[in-house]
């Protein structure tokens, strides 16, 4: 499915309480203050809920930055405009 990238940015903005406009390829577990293990869990659940997919165990550990999230979502058929 093709979706607007805004939808993905909104998920991160809501989970990590950051500004959606500031999200780019540098956004990662190292640059976001609230990206701890509990919020990472919420992120996984929110992404799976919003895009109706299920990550594998490896993927849940992989998606530690914005580019990787987009890449893994693409593997699940989610393309960003």
């Amino acid at each position, binding site marked *: 499915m093709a979706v607007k990238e805004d939808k993905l940015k*909104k*998920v991160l903005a*809501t*989970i990590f*309480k950051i500004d959606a406009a500031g999200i780019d390829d540098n956004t990662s577990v190292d640059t976001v203050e609230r990206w701890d*293990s*509990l919020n990472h*869990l*919420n992120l*996984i*659940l*929110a992404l*799976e*809920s*919003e895009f109706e997919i299920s990550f594998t*165990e490896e993927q*849940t550990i992989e998606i530690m930055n914005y580019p990787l999230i987009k890449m893994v979502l693409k593997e699940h058929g989610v393309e960003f405009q």
Partner: protein
Amino acid sequence: MTAALHKEITNTIARVKVDPTYIAYSALANLTDSAPDLGFPQYRISILRNFTIEPLIPVIKGEAMRLGVAADVRLSDFDAIAESVFNSQSQIYSHDPHLMIMAQWPETWSPALTNKFLTLTPEQIDDEVERVVETTRNLIQAIRSNSTAPLIINNFLLPTTRTLGILDFQSESHQTHVILRLNRALLEMSKSFPDVYWIDLMSLFSRVGYDNAVDQRNWHIARAPLSKNVLVPLGLEYAKFIRALSGKTRKCLVLDCDNTLWGGVIGEDGLDGIKLGQTHPGSSFVTFQQECLNLYNRGVILALCSKNNEADVLDVFKNHPDTILKEHHFATWQVNWDDKATNIRRIADELNIDIDSLVFVDDNAFECDWVRSQLPQVEVIHLPKEPFHYRRDLISPGFFDSLAFSSEDKKRSAMYVSDNQRKLRMMAATSLNDYLVNLNLRAEIGRANKDDLPRISQLTQKTNQFNVTTKRYTEGDIERFFGAPNSDVFFLRLTDRISELGLIGVAIVEYRDTVADIDSLLLSCRALGRGAEEVLLCAIQKSAATRACKKLTGTYLMSKKNMQVSDFYEKHGFTLTEKTPHGTRWELAIEGRPLPNYPNWINVLEINT
């Protein structure tokens, strides 16, 4: 800044109503911290847990915002339930919660009964059931000795990997029945404590489906068993308790007619053409009507709001062979060509209930949108395309769920119907006094006995308008007033020529030295206009006199909904002693005064005074 924030909250709540997803609730939960500045009362929740429950919190907080409160949630340390519960200094208690939740994941609560069932002998099974019940009893006991906050506990799930497969259900000694027996034993045990409620995880997970609801991956990685599919349903289920405990249970269901209560349009298709009957597609509408009737029997008031000629609509309820609902089930209706927001306001006014007690149901997106925009306090259910899903969408939000169900509730809807008949008769009466005398009012007043306490607690939680202090009390609270030597709980029952209203008035009085202070005085809104409050005041004054009190004192605490009693004490001869930003204090000297008489239009029987 505040106006912008207010708008953001309003818009986010509106969004969640239309699109109740996890991320929508999370966005709403993010606004909770700034909500108290905008007047949202704080609602403190303490959660004891033995698993990773954090992902659920945004849904509970978001739904609490929708209910109008800012939830402040404190979690116990992970899997430290006993440590927190038995430590009276624990932050779980110092949080001073309005609500306590104990969330125990069954596999941790009893690994033996959930995962190792076949390793147990029958004696060991019985011992383990008893152990679970007794340790839970001890936990509840410790909680109760430190807090009076209502407590919600979850029950055990049905085993999905039943240890004996298809043989499992065939015997009471196998796993499935043991779990059912355990849940019943837990319920039985909990009844010896006040204000303990069960969240039925067994039922909820059945609806969602165990495999859908339990995230095995996250359970093993992070001890977080709640899947993305169960977070919203489970969070909403907890929030239903918040709704019920804070007096926000909705009271009235306003129904559209065409393509809601029957298929098709009555004005065009006629009685023979609308779809309502034993076979498809009319059978879906019969099922839906039956569910509305079930709500009626739960005490929900039914009303109609339809763009039609009144005669056409009433024709269906009077003459259609397959209609389940009849004219007499509806307390009122607005069937005309005016806009639905105006009509819904008229319905609320006529029934003398607040606009935020209403739920509006319609199949038409335009109507739903219009009502949502004009009356944001009304909960709107936009019915789905498929009529066979109507029933599910009506019931699953739980807008009408309350935590007590009494015989009064069963009679309530019929009462609202006859109340309207009474109003029509009222207009024909020559004077108010004539009319009241003509009503043949009979009252029972006195000190409550134990059986009355649940109903009394319910009234304190639901009554918003004729309520001088709007203090919400649980059954445990009422029991304390009831049992204490220096306080009294008064009940008032009323019957008139048209209907038996039941227990509709409450007063709570505390005696200190020579002063009798009225802590609470309230009347159910359907008992208004009959002077029933005079009976309560009279009984209070008589009781105070027998205790040689020199004066009565009372407080009026201002709320959004009780303006009509702001002058209650003034009207009854009390003098103003204090004025604060929150309300007023009043007193009445009773020493040396003759005992008051009950109003002459009510026949009063004193019980247990």
